[in-house]
């Protein structure tokens, strides 16, 4: 009896363990079928009444007629436009401070500085962004390396898409006398040189010293080999990002504050053969021809429309950066500015481009596929294709229409944002409830 009960117990335990192990070894693959009124795939033509099949967060198929598996969860989105989530190619928001106050800090990483509760990420998700490259600001010569994150997650680890992406180089001398609050109170920070002469010289000197260091390192390695001694000297970790830039493991994001910085960025690219993307200031369009010859990717300033005085006619002329780069055949991506009405949204930036003559398909690519390419995540983001991540946005209408809202955001097959459940947005759009007693007492006072 005792033996039997023991055996039964062992059996039950075994079965439980096996079921558990089975469940662990072969988890139920989560299948999704999104029935969308319209799919803007970016990779190909737009599909009316199509279906996107998603398995474990990866897009398996997208077409008009797709057989939906019996075990797939169906998401009905007949009245929605589904497109890949927006990608932001460059931002310095969401950091506690965008820049360190010394000029040569390539070994820093924004990974250590990203604050997940910063409202910037919440806003970005609401506005349909699914991936962004957070780079240091424009105030340090060699600012540090960037981090690609999704604007969702409680820790930076949870937000992470890709670490160690891109190195920020700023060719604009640091803005002097920026009032910054530190623990000791307000103070003016001064970082590095104040003129472009000194700034460029500092860069050249850094590169010359780096080359010397590498030569000496190689020499020591060679000597050790000749003398048959063990060689255990490691490369200086503080120089590693710049070395990775030289051997192409990292891309350089070179900030050109004014158009005159562009030739210098090209000089750097030619001398050191960096894999370069340009981050431009407001007047960057003046260097469009130069950039088009070098076929460099460009990230535009948030302010797209710039006024310029024509020196001959004295007329004020409107210059629209995306239209100029589009004509010059340069691939571009946009930046945003969260405090402003239009510039806050990537879709609005694309709509501005279309307004002034950029082809619609190209404008849509410049907020999805191109930025994904620039920051090296186009194998996972930027378009709706089989094999890419299901990081999609569900829109209430055409993406370039000012009356369209992001209804849902899906990141990796998981719905992470729903407008209907967005309490903060509700508070921003709806009339507040009258404060108790205030109305009556006020009436007494006024009348």
């Amino acid at each position, binding site marked *: 009896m005792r033996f039997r009960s023991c055996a039964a117990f062992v059996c039950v335990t075994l079965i439980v363990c096996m079921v558990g192990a089975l469940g662990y070894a072969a988890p139920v693959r989560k299948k999704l079928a999104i029935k969308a009124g319209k799919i803007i795939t970016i990779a190909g033509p737009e599909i009316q009444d199509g279906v996107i099949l998603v398995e474990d967060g990866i897009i398996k198929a997208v077409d008009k007629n797709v057989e939906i598996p019996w075990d797939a969860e169906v998401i009905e989105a007949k009245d929605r436009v589904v497109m890949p989530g927006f990608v932001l190619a460059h931002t310095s928001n969401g950091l506690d401070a965008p820049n360190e106050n010394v000029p040569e800090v390539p070994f820093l990483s924004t990974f250590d500085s990203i604050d997940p509760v910063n409202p910037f990420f919440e*806003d970005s998700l609401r506005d349909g962004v699914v991936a962004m490259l957070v780079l240091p600001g424009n105030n340090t010569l060699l600012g540090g390396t960037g981090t690609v994150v999704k604007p969702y997650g409680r820790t930076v680890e949870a937000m992470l898409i890709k670490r160690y992406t891109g190195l920020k180089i700023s060719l604009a001398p640091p803005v002097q006398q920026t009032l910054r609050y530190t623990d000791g109170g307000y103070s003016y920070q001064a970082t590095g040189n104040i003129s472009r002469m000194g700034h460029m010289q500092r860069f050249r000197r850094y590169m010359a010293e780096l080359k010397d260091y590498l030569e000496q390192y190689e020499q020591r390695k060679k000597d050790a080999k000749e003398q048959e001694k063990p060689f255990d000297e490691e490369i200086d970790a503080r120089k590693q990002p710049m070395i990775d830039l030289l051997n192409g493991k990292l891309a350089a994001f070179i900030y050109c504050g004014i158009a005159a910085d562009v030739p210098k960025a090209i000089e750097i690219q030619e001398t050191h053969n960096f894999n370069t993307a340009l981050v431009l200031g407001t007047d960057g369009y003046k260097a469009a021809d130069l950039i088009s010859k070098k076929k460099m990717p460009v990230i535009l300033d948030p302010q797209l429309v710039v006024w310029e005085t024509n020196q001959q006619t004295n007329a004020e002329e409107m210059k629209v950066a995306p239209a100029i780069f589009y004509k010059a055949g340069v691939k571009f991506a946009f930046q945003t500015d*969260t*405090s402003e009405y*239009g510039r806050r949204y990537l879709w609005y930036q694309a709509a501005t481009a279309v307004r002034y003559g950029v082809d619609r398909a190209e404008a849509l690519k410049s907020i999805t596929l191109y930025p994904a390419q620039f920051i090296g995540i186009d194998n996972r983001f930027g378009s709706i294709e089989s094999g890419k991540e299901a990081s999609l946005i569900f829109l209430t209408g055409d993406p*370039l229409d000012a009356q369209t809202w992001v209804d849902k955001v899906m990141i990796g097959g998981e719905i992470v944002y729903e407008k209907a459940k967005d309490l903060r947005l509700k508070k921003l759009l709806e009339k*507040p409830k009258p404060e108790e007693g205030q109305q009556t007492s006020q009436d007494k006072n006024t009348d």
Partner: protein
Amino acid sequence: MAILCIKGSRSETFIEDFQLPIEDLKSKIQGVIWLSFLSVLLTAASRLCAQEKTVAIKAGEILTVSGAPIKAGIILIRNGKITDIGTEIAVPQDASVIDASDSVVMPGLVDAGALPPVRGDLNEQSGEITAALRISTALDPKSKVLKRIVQTGCTTLYIAPGGANLIAGLGVIIKPVGKTAAEMVIKDDAALKIVMGSDSTQGNRIPWFEPPTNFYYRRPTTTMAVALMLRKSFFDARQYIASHEKEDPDMEVVAAALQGKIPIRVAVRRAIDIRTALRIANEYGLSLILDECTEGYKVAEEIAKKNAPVVLGPFYYYPRTSSQYDEGREVSWNNAGILAKAGVRVAIASNAQEGPRLAATQDESIDLLTAAAFAVRHGMAPAEALKSITLTPAEILGVADRVGSLEKGKDADILILSGNPLAATSRIKRVILNGQTVFQD
């Protein structure tokens, strides 16, 4: 005549002395005189002809604002005025035709709080009650701001002195094209600007470690004193009207405002300031126009009850400037929609005035069409939003008999757009002001 002859003969002899070919010279001079006379005649004639000539706009769609939209309509313009508008209109044979059959036509925008096209500071620092300051005296017709504003579709602007003084001065309504300031002005002394809240106290100091004769020791320094000084100003104006002992230019203006001869525009952001403004208005029987009104959504019913129109702006999601940060942090995106729903007359303006510590530039403020498009996005009705940048501001400014909608007899201030004005992808193709094309894409 005689003197002329003598002079002539003298000069002839004078010239003869030098043995110049006098006959030749004479004929040349005569020729020049004749030519110049003819050219004057010709230009005058051509100007007359140009004025007389009718311009016809063939539009795909006309958004009249005052009435229903007209599909495939025609607008006739003569002498800078709209002479006819509708679908079945005979176009005169000699009329020059603007073909906008693939476009949308709407009235020129009215910005009830534009960035002032002036040079130099807008804030007079010598006093807090500077009611007699006139922004029209500082107008710069060659300003770059004007050339830009025209291209964003604004054809009528209200501009006012800066926002650092309690009673800041008198605003003016202008059209942004003209060789002289006088040519631009539609209505001078259009409104008296009053600034409440923290802007009129910013920069003011109480005597502290410095001699009390210091230029910057001014009141008010608190919100309480803002209310007090405002009440006192109107009280003084009442006394001034009654007694009229000595002339005072500032009191003259405040008295005119008190008697309702000049509209009063009060810049207020916070709900408590809006309530204070309405209370003071009640005490002195004033009718107010409320500017900025960032927290208007909290007191929409109270504003509607007082029948005070509102000129909203600037618009932002997060404060950019220090004064916005101090006072305008509690924003509702749907401020315009909530106010309009409560029955308040709402105008959307750029309101890019320079405050005490704020240097707004045209680049930083969004244009009116974008502001209206976002007002609709955030909850305002589209027709209402379109009105809020055309007819409503014109009514608030008191120039709705001339501008703000496309109607017979009104000024020919017309925009031609590539599509729906509230769409982010539509572009302004042509701006017509007083019947003349002032911008063409």
